[in-house]
């Protein structure tokens, strides 16, 4: 028990003194995860809404695919994109492997199905009269869907948060595609993995606490938004 308490003390000390290493990792984590979440939102929300309200051939297949992709193991995404970005791969010329951009690409692949799926659930769970009403009032299909999304905006918000939650907490993609380079692609999760492998338990714990606090703050912020 003493060992744990001692580590906890050291960890708190690091956080209070805003240890540069910790801050750097937090910065990289937030930057990559937020960028990836923005990208995923840009095509995940329309995709989810389209599958939700649309009736087009192949809709069922897309539905099944989205549900399958929800359970996509991060290492598989990491592996596929590694092959794509590697010097021997088709996109090797871009030299993206082991840069933040490779991480963002991987995280976008992870978050998109989640955001699309949750949006889909929100849309299908909405009052079925919203869309017909909007159409009757003279809105086009696109405008009507937009109105519908506005009605279920909390659901969409939850979708975006879930996507963000997945990418900020994962370690596989960040490690495989980013490579854990200090001050460049080292995130909170890869730093925890590294410090643990070095036997620096306290430092890992400090990072773990920061990771939790970040998640807490984001959720508090969203709760406030929802009460308005």
């Amino acid at each position, binding site marked *: 028990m003493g060992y744990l308490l001692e580590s906890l003390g050291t960890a708190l000390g690091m956080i209070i003194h805003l240890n540069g290493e910790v801050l750097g990792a937090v910065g990289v984590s937030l930057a990559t995860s937020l960028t990836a979440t923005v990208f995923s939102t840009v095509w995940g929300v329309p995709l989810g809404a389209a599958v939700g309200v649309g009736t087009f051939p192949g809709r069922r297949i897309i539905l099944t695919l989205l549900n399958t992709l929800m359970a996509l193991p991060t290492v598989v995404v990491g592996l596929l994109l590694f092959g794509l970005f*590697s010097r021997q791969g088709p996109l090797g010329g871009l030299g993206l492997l*082991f840069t933040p951009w490779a991480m963002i690409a991987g995280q976008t692949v992870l978050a998109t199905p989640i955001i699309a799926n949750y949006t889909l659930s929100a849309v299908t769970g909405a009052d079925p009269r919203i869309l017909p009403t909007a159409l009757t009032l003279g809105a086009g299909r696109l405008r009507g869907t937009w109105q519908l999304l506005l009605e279920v905006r909390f659901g969409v918000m939850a979708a975006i948060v879930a996507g963000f939650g997945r990418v900020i907490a994962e370690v596989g993609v960040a490690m495989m595609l980013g*490579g854990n380079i200090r001050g460049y692609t080292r995130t909170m999760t890869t730093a925890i993995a590294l410090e643990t*492998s070095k*036997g620096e338990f306290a430092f890992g714990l400090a990072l773990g606490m920061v990771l939790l606090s970040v998640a807490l703050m984001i959720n508090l912020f969203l709760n406030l938004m929802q009460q308005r």
Partner: protein
Amino acid sequence: MLRHFVITTLLVLLAMPAFAIEHLRLATTTSTENSGLLAELLPPFEKANDCHIDVIAVGTGKALKLGETGDVDVVLVHARSKEDKFVAAGYGVDRRDVMYNDFVILGPKSDPAGIKGLKDAVAAMTRIALTQATFVSRGDDSGTNTRELQLWKAAGIKAEGDWYLEAGRGMGEVLTMADERRGYTLSDRGTYLAYRDKIDLGVMVEGDKRLFNPYGVIMVNPARHPHVKVKLARKFMDFLTSDTGRKLITGYRRGGEQLFYVAD
């Protein structure tokens, strides 16, 4: 169905004592594991002594930490300065030399720093830093990382900047990264030979005595951690330094090359 399940479970439970052979926990470096040496070295000892050696392959720093906390019985590592500190602090006893191999400075065939064929490792590192050619560091507190930092120190250089990438990962991953980023790196020869066909890096500098890499085996101090399996640990250390063990070590080949040598 249920009856089958119950019977199977009972049979498994009954067979349990048969699996209860003694386990010796060995913390070692990724280089001994990655090179395939342990797969060659351990089975004969396990058979002869009816035991199982649980290998925990981590960097030297972490291996010694596991020894400090008493989570393992024996450590097999390569960072003499750290090993001596470990023994002096009373964490380990009975350190013995086991074998040695060497480090090589690897780099891309284009050799932007122009160090190929240099005989002096420190001069080579100096040139890499001056030309700001990409260098990938293990940055994980391993034996290799410790050696790299000693070389920078000898060159009087503080390695930092955009050209210096601290990966914080194992040797294999760092070789891949150095290959992808077209950079230089310091590697143990064993891991390099294991990866040679997969990467485009070549040996730039070798043979400097500062690239010499001795391995030592240390028993975790039983006075500090009473649960250490002293008898089995001592047997294992005797085996490593015996004629049988030495023959296995020097006889191990990878890609037609001998990886480890024993001190005479």
